[in-house]
């Protein structure tokens, strides 16, 4: 299948793997920034196929996982209010707040709706002029532009019963935070391709130079990941640390100027708390002064909500690449998708969820029998 099969071709994968095996002479630790990349790696067993010296560290790039507990609790409080229609992308619904999640709010009578686009939420607002419609605006540079555009549209159309609960975050300050951490083990980054397709790559050369770390812009299909690893390892073996675009089919150096202009109009950079990590300076966006009246936090009295993370949850360490999910004592015992301690266990991009879903048996499993069986007929 065009655009899917051709990026999962086993023969091409084998050639890339051979290239990586032939290049590596020493141990290297690479971080894939994006949770989508983590899931591709674990789902396809890519980490099992790489040389032992190449260690992949899972990064903080799951938008659902890094949304602070405080913001989740604010969302739950707003969604439970009578007269509110709370719209969200589907994967936020199972994320645990302090004592419940959005599914629970819905089962208790809250009007919580799954949408596929923030513009769908705006349409809900148009169709329900007597209700307050709130959209949960979370995510990285990928989801921020359409959310910004929705607020822009709301104002243009004069829709007043719509607001955004904003918790947008930015990738480069997170990379900075990881590299300046005293525990940092990361020697190279697979940067998130879709983020760069919006923002371009101009934020990265300074980071690469300052921390002397190669940053390779990488896509999300198995061959993308392997090519990203190959190029990063090549740089490391040569002692280089440049920004390299291995996802040129989607990423232009300047990114998407229209999306960036929309971001600059509607949002402004702010300090943001990351769930499990803490506040990272300049790492987020909020609605700019001009659009502040579309901020759900201004419209609903939720500023008093403060929360504390469950002590047993070590997702902060997982998100910083300091701990593998299956190294956590709670993994698969007190923490499962059914009873998650943190968002990393329930998000579709969460590292703990990836390990729980795809890797519960520990190591590789013999599938010889399956191979034999498939020769029948």
């Amino acid at each position, binding site marked *: 299948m065009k655009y899917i099969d051709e990026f999962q071709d*086993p023969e091409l994968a084998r050639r890339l793997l051979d290239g990586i095996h032939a290049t590596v002479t020493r141990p290297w630790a690479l971080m894939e920034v994006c949770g989508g990349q983590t899931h591709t790696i674990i789902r396809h*067993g890519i980490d099992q196929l790489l040389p032992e010296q190449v260690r992949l560290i899972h990064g903080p790039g799951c938008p659902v996982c890094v949304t602070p507990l405080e913001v989740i609790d604010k969302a739950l409080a707003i969604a439970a209010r009578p007269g509110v229609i709370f719209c969200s992308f589907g994967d936020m619904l199972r994320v645990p707040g302090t004592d419940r999640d959005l599914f629970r709010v819905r089962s208790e009578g809250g009007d919580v709706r799954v949408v596929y686009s923030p513009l769908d939420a705006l349409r809900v607002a148009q169709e329900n002029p007597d209700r307050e419609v709130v959209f949960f605006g979370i995510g990285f540079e990928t989801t921020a532009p359409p959310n910004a555009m929705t607020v822009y549209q709301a104002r243009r159309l004069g829709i007043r019963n719509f607001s955004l609960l904003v918790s947008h975050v930015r990738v480069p300050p997170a990379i900075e935070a990881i590299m300046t951490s005293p525990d940092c083990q990361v020697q190279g980054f697979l940067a998130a391709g879709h983020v760069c397709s919006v923002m371009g790559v101009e934020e990265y050369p300074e980071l690469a130079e300052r921390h002397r770390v190669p940053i390779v812009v990488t896509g999300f299909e198995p061959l993308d990941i392997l090519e990203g690893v190959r190029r990063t390892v090549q740089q490391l073996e040569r002692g280089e640390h440049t920004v390299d675009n291995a996802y040129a089919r989607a990423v232009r150096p300047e990114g998407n100027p229209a999306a960036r202009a929309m971001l600059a109009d509607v949002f402004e950079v702010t300090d943001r708390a990351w769930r499990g990590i803490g506040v990272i300076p300049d790492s987020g966006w909020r609605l700019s002064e001009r659009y502040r009246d579309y901020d759900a936090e201004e419209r609903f009295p939720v500023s008093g909500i403060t929360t504390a993370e469950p002590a047993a949850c070590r997702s902060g360490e997982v998100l910083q690449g300091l701990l593998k999910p299956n190294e956590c004592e709670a993994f698969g015992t007190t923490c499962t998708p059914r009873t998650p301690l943190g968002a990393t266990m329930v998000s579709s991009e969460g590292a703990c969820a990836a390990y729980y*879903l795809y890797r519960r*048996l520990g190591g590789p499993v013999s599938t010889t*029998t399956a191979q034999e*069986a498939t020769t029948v007929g």
Partner: protein
Amino acid sequence: MGHGGGGALSAELVEHVFAPAFGGETLATMADSAAVTLGGARLAFSTDTFVVRPLFFPGGSIGDLAVNGTVNDLAMSGARAAYLSCGVVLEEGVEMPVVARVAEAIGAAARTAGVEIVTGDTKVVEAGHGDGVYLNTAGIGLIPDGVDIRPQRARPGDVVLVSGQIGLHGVAVLSLREGLEFDVQVESDCAPLGGLVEAMLAVTPDLHVLRDPTRGGVAAALGEIAAAAGVGVAVDERHLPVPEPVAGACAMLGLDPLYVANEGKLVAFVPRDHADAVLEAMRAHPLGADAAVIGACVADHPGMVVARTGLGGTRVVDLPLGEQLPRIC
């Protein structure tokens, strides 16, 4: 809502709440239909309730589902459905032409499946307490002599077959329900499987397990069989018949085709000696033309399903918790 999604939450509800309260040995087999003996005859008996939005979708309607769903549950015991009941719950205000269209669909599906609807019931609930029309069907059929098909009969060495392309129904309904438009319209595979099962039984009565992978998809069906029989299941992702539009839609939404619902497919566990002949018989039937071997039953990792990935790695295929949720980006 997750408890109705056909995944782990549904299974927990049935195992921990309903089954203990209801009691009975037959229920404990957790098959798609119950095999009971009455007056010397071995009967398959099954019921299912249909809560579907929208009521009509590409390739079918709630009426087709209500008939084929129960017909197929009976077929998964090797029985050809003979008689069906049909219960209808209408929401106050639903338009009569809609009710008539659903009724027509039920009748047409029953004729196609060769089954007679012999009893029924109608109730009306207040406006706002339903999605227009809910249906319940129950059915009975005769299990042929020498046939014993149930999840507990899966054995290491069995070959695992699927009768055709997977994921069509789920993507068809999703595209309409959520207003998503894909390049190619996907039609539901909703169909009665009694004839296909008869064709398979004609080759050998010794089919070990049949399951129609509806809610929760092939992943849930395989997971339930692995758990029921205490065996492992190893599948090869490269052999899964996933049609292009389904793969494309799933890639876009972050869904896994293995977990997407089917309404006209079956998964079969067949002794290795019979696998070639059964596969051939399936492919000779119109509803099994794309049948494929997708894996094997193994002694390793009992209770779990493990997939060999396209690149040669491995991964666990878990029971879904509830409904799959499209991802944020």
